[in-house]
């Protein structure tokens, strides 16, 4: 029997960040349980971008605070090899008057929260991305401090820092069941039994399964998203280019490769991480149309991952009402990686009963029963 103060289920960037922030605040008796290897779920399959340009106040603030942390994360966590950070902006393309209206509304909100983003005309967009096809483009928004970081490195940096503070990380340890007796939770895995008064569900696309083990119905469903990466070439594309109209994003990493992905509104809500040839040709068609310079770049690999989708595309953060000591940090709906520094900090503050750096009450699971949803409009 392994007895701890806190057990975190899920070794993605969220789980590792929560573990680090708990330990850093003095709660060092923490175990992280990961069914495969660290980053094997959504973290290691994601698009690796971060942006300030959101359509709700909460996401703008989470992103602003989190990105400020990413900018200095290698120093904060003493991770000398660095997290491959790049800040050359996100260019969000608008093709319809409705989109332009929403984007301008978002810009006003972002400005009020101290985020430096601006409207750019198609001509100005071509100054930022010279080979951009501007056919049909009404304009775009641009925030120069958006960018890219390597999810494997960020997670590794958090995991190493957490381990140095005493956190135990158990990989290839899959949670099979959870029993609650009084305040004590017993977590049964394929590699033994773990006990703690506090359990955190940071299981991403598996969060609902973990919830069911304690009789909690989490409205979080896995949704497949596909992605590909090319061979590395010389740096030609500064910003992430994102189009909600085409449901696509494309960014060149500091390594030189291009990462690009598509969302499919008709994707069934099921756990599926297999890639499809249909994605490959659709992605190629849209990417070559939008960024013709990519036509001679070779695709080396494609894969898929799942978003942990919540009904309002916002995460569930906090203690589950009626199950004291059982916390959830899931439902990130495709933007868990970029806010992970703040997720970790806020969850640690909530668990330790400290005042929170940003308001978190609106992320409570209870919003789905009271109807206080706050839909994020800007998601691919």
């Amino acid at each position, binding site marked *: 029997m392994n007895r701890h103060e806190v057990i975190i289920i899920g070794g993605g960037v969220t789980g590792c960040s929560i573990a680090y922030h708990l330990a850093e605040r003095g709660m060092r008796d923490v175990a992280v349980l990961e069914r495969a290897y660290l980053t094997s779920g959504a973290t*290691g399959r994601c698009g690796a971008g971060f942006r300030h340009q959101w359509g709700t106040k909460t996401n703008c603030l989470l992103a602003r605070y989190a990105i400020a942390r990413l900018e200095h994360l290698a120093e904060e966590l003493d991770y000398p090899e660095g997290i491959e950070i790049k800040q050359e902006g996100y260019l969000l393309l608008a093709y319809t008057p409705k989109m332009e209206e929403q984007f301008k509304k978002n810009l006003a909100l972002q400005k009020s929260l101290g985020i430096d983003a601006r409207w750019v005309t198609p001509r100005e967009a071509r100054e930022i991305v010279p080979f951009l096809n501007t056919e049909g483009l009404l304009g775009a928004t641009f925030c120069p401090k958006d960018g890219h970081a390597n999810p*494997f490195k960020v997670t590794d940096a958090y995991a190493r820092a957490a381990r140095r503070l005493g956190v135990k990380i158990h990989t290839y340890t899959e949670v099979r069941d959870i029993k609650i007796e009084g305040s004590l939770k017993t977590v049964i895995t394929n590699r033994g039994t773990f006990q703690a008064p506090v359990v955190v569900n940071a299981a991403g696309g598996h969060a609902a399964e973990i919830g069911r083990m304690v009789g909690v119905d989490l409205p979080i469903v896995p949704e497949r998203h596909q992605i590909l*990466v090319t061979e590395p070439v010389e740096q030609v594309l500064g910003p992430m280019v994102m189009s909600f109209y085409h449901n696509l994003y494309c960014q060149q990493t500091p*390594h030189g490769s291009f990462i690009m992905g598509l969302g499919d509104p008709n994707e069934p809500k099921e756990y599926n991480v297999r890639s499809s040839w249909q994605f490959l*040709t659709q992605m190629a*068609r849209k990417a070559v149309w939008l960024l013709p310079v990519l036509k001679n770049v070779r695709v080396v*690999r494609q894969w898929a991952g799942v978003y942990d989708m919540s009904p309002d595309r916002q995460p569930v953060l906090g203690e589950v009402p009626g199950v004291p000591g059982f916390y959830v940090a899931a439902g990130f709906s495709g933007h868990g990686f970029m806010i992970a520094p703040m997720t970790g900090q806020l969850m640690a503050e909530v668990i330790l009963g400290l005042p929170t750096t940003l308001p978190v009450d609106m992320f409570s699971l209870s919003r789905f029963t009271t109807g206080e949803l706050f839909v994020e409009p800007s998601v691919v």
Partner: protein
Amino acid sequence: MEDKTIICRCEDVTLEEIRKAIAEGARTLDEIKRLKRCGMGPCQGRTCRPLIAGEIARMTGQNPAELALPTFRPPVVPLKLGTLARGGVPDEQA
């Protein structure tokens, strides 16, 4: 093999780096791939995979035949986006 021997030619990863990753706790090809990029290049790990598997087995006392292999991901060979965009028709035939 020497420490400076290049194990992954696509991503320039040396034996020394692989040994360091294993010494720091990596036990599977998947973990090493994600931290060091070996196996993420155009050859998809055809060169480095067996070499790394052998090194993990040697350093950790595991049976190489029992090591889990990373998923082999499509495409099998690198393909130009332009060719894919034309439904698989290469340049010279377009």
